[in-house]
């Protein structure tokens, strides 16, 4: 959290505006080699390093849990069958992406 705050501060300094517009942003891509890459961030340009990423199967069962790395990225093995990804930046700041939308 401390790191996130420090990074937010950094974003604040580089963009020179208060980090108020803080809509979470997440996009995932099928790497075509059996892995999926998700990248996150916020609409004000601040980093999503340390933000949780949850992967659920078609029955809504949590099958994988991770955190965005320092580049605000998280890579995981593509699940078989239906799945969806939740980028979890806190209450009211979740982004859900269905596996069917994750393409190469």
């Amino acid at each position, binding site marked *: 959290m401390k790191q996130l705050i420090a990074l937010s501060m950094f974003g604040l300094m580089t963009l020179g505006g208060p980090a108020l517009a803080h809509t979470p*942003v997440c*996009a995932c*891509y099928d790497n075509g080699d059996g892995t999926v890459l998700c990248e996150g*961030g*916020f*609409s004000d340009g601040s980093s999503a390093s340390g933000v949780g990423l949850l992967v659920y199967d078609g029955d809504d069962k949590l099958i994988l849990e991770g955190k965005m790395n320092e580049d605000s990225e998280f890579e995981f093995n593509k699940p078989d069958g239906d799945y969806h990804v939740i980028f979890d930046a806190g209450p009211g700041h979740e982004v859900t992406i269905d596996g069917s939308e994750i*393409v190469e």
Partner: protein
Amino acid sequence: MKSLLSGVAIAAIAMTSQANAHFQLLYTPHVMLDKAQEIPLKLMFGHPMENGHAMDMGKPVAFDVYFKGKKKDLLPTLKPIMWTGAHNEAHAFETSYKVKRNGDYIFALTPAPYYEGSEDIYIQQITKSYVNKAMPTDWNEPLGLPTEIVPLNKPYQNFVGGTFTGQLLSGGKPAAGVECEIEYINPAIDVEKNAFSKDASGPVPDSAMVAVTDPSGLFTFGLPRAGTWGFACLGAGPVTEHEGKALSQDAVLWIDVKPFQ
């Protein structure tokens, strides 16, 4: 004496108020994307506000896209096309680019110097256009071009009634007292047919709209109308001669303006 005369000629051209500025276009129709997609890029040289004569482009010197500080050469991807202007056809170029990752994509074109016979000078407009996907990254950073306009407002998100501020750099340093001409693309653009519409209904002011950069190289312009607006800061670059003739090395920047609704 000859060079003094051509200097005077350039000054005369730069100070003449005529609403027929040359503008290097670097155009794609949608500049704020929310999904990965392939975007068309059209490179043509013309007079976009009065929908005037289209000029032949030579093979560009450089064409790159910058993403998160990394540069990718797009020159080999350029295909020659004929662009249909309202009055004539001219040699132009096109390509497409696959936008995938989130962030700012900065396209930068260094065209071949264009010989303008009526003025007996060469013109080279180093041009930047921006595309954003989902979140901002480095739209505010200079690229290190010989001359460029660094935006102080997001170039892909401006609104009618707002202002746009840019900082003109020459050799990486702020360039003061330079006249920047301001235009918008008046005709409709047919991306499929590589053409401007015959008619353009938007207003064309009696004389060129200009802003002169302040001691910090800054200029600000109030945005009166939605569309694609361009700024061309004339003779801003460090190179002033090409093949024995005067060269006006200009910095061009394109921005997108939408109604605030």
